């Protein structure tokens, strides 16, 4: 059980990060389906830069810059050329998957797995006092720094969204665009920044995937960006909700990993568990929300 919870937290981290990024665009009024592509770009560029610079910190920072460049393209086409955000999101995903392979070939002469021997494993941090707490300790202690970074960023994004002028205006752009216009503020500007923020978070989410392995595998994100989108909705577009929703998915996934060994059921059925479990959670959440709004009869 402890191992399961520990693993759930590890699995949820990239989802939580990407969902956090997506939350900014979502709150600004844009459905961002490019999370997958941004994550892939981040995964590739951060490990490449880590390899080239020899420092994980520089690598991730430069990876963020590269991912933001892609997001800038997405934002310019969507906001300035006024293209449909869904199509441009799809285009971004296509571009990221093609571009990472082409670049990988240009840089390393290899279109497949690129292993970076020089990159060691991520450190595991044991949290002194917390690790002694029975269940919780096993769950939240002993993870890579990225896990704790994701929580710090979650707190930070919660602060940015709810305590700063930027957050107040960003959310207003999503809630009632015309209000911002009437005050002489540009909703597009806030959406632009939201795209950059989601690139920032997705880049880190991607970095988690590759730096954890010390290798880049084409398509390594394998649908996590879409799950992140689900997490945003399941989490009711609130930072704490994201934490809960990504934990639900992380737990379902960890459980399915465990179940493959324990149950004599075809693997594909078990692989479907996370989706069905999340679907169930989604329905329960909406039943609850709906019940509150009902008229007594």
């Amino acid at each position: 059980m402890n191992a399961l919870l520990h693993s759930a937290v590890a699995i949820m981290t990239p989802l939580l990060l990407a969902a956090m990024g997506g939350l900014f665009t979502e709150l600004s009024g844009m459905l961002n389906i490019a999370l997958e592509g941004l994550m892939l770009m981040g995964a590739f560029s951060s490990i490449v830069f880590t390899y080239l610079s020899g420092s994980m910190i520089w690598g991730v920072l430069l990876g963020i810059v590269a991912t933001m460049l892609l997001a800038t393209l997405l934002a310019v086409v969507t906001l300035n050329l006024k293209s449909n955000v869904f199509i441009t999101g799809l285009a971004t995903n296509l571009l990221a998957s093609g571009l990472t392979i082409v670049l990988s070939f240009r840089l390393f002469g290899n279109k497949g797995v690129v292993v970076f021997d020089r990159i060691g494993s991520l450190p595991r941090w044991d949290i002194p006092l917390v690790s002694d707490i029975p269940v919780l300790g096993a769950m939240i202690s002993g993870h890579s720094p990225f896990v704790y970074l994701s929580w710090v960023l979650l707190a930070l994004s919660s602060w940015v969204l709810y305590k700063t002028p930027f957050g107040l205006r960003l959310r207003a752009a999503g809630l009632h665009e015309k209000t911002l216009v009437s005050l002489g503020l540009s909703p597009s500007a806030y959406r632009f920044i939201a795209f950059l923020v989601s690139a920032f978070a997705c880049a880190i989410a991607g970095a988690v995937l590759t730096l954890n392995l010390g290798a880049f595998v084409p398509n390594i994100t394998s649908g996590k960006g879409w799950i992140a989108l689900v997490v945003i909705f399941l989490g009711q577009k609130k930072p704490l909700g994201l934490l809960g929703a990504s934990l639900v998915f992380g737990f379902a996934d960890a459980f399915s990993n465990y179940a493959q060994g324990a149950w004599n059921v075809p693997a594909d059925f078990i692989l479907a568990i996370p989706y069905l479990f999340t679907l169930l959670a989604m329905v329960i959440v909406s039943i609850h929300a709906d019940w509150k709004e009902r008229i007594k009869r």
Partner: protein
Amino acid sequence: MNIRKMLVTILVASMVCSFGSLAAAGMTEQASQEEKPLSVLVYITGVVAGSPPYTALAEGANQFAAEHPNVKVKIYEAGFNQAEWEEQLTSLVATGEYDIVLGSNPSLPEIAVRVGSKFPKQKFVITDAFLEGNSQIRTYLYNQYEQSLYLGYLAGLVTVSDMPYANKALKVGFIAAQEYPLLNKHMVPGFLAGARMINPAIELDFRVVGNWFDANKAADLASSMRAAGVDVFAVIAGGAAQGLFRVAQQQGAYIVYHNDNEYKAAPSHVVGCGSMEQRKLVMEVLSDVLSGSVAYGTASIVGVKEGYLGFHFDDPAYVRNLPQDIRDKFEAFMQEVREGRVSYTLPPL
């Protein structure tokens, strides 16, 4: 208004020009083909990168072309969607440009039969597949049951040993990207049978990633399996295998690897690598093609005895990673396999 009309005219004119120049470029190119060399199509049912058999296939063909100036090779990657393979192969064959199609996939013969029926002159040589009796097709089937058998035997030796990362549990693991017939019918049963030759009580923990690239999922699976008592892993998962390599290094576990030398992927944890002489086979096939001695219509099953499957004994990591007694036992077993003294029934595909 005038400016708009002008813009339209310019746009249309420039498009017409560009199309024209394109067509012209195409013409000149076609005209330059005079003497027809042997043209080989290497048809990859997937992508080359990340797949040792496909890499060997492509490299073997390229190497052969480098040695024979009148041989031209085109590598075509058809992607993972098997529903599209036939149409793409048909398109390629329809050009009439290729004297021979090389491929490596169990399902390729039936596609080749259908494509071949439309183009009766087209010849195919397919490895990793089995089909007899079609005069356009020559197949070679690697005996993957056999390779899995001896890799399983090695895994069994390791799991009952007292090597540093081996535990008491009699459990070996197999991580696959996806389930497919060759895997389910030859590789997994072969692996388990090999391990049970050491101790019939050995159990196999078989798990599936769901795709060929989610290395992090593979890593999670590997951790979970390790926690369940698995200490030796086999893996057929393409890029996702990276996850297993990482977990083995971080948490301590052993790996036996199919088809390729991957000792370096997780130094001191990969204890054995099987070999598949795809490159050698391809080059032999191509020289047969040049000399016109290909026995179309026949199929061969090739394994250790024939010299197309083997084991990378020569890598220093093998000696370094395994204690003497295990190596002795394993090498003795391999000798029996080589001499055909190990009896097993090859399950039908």
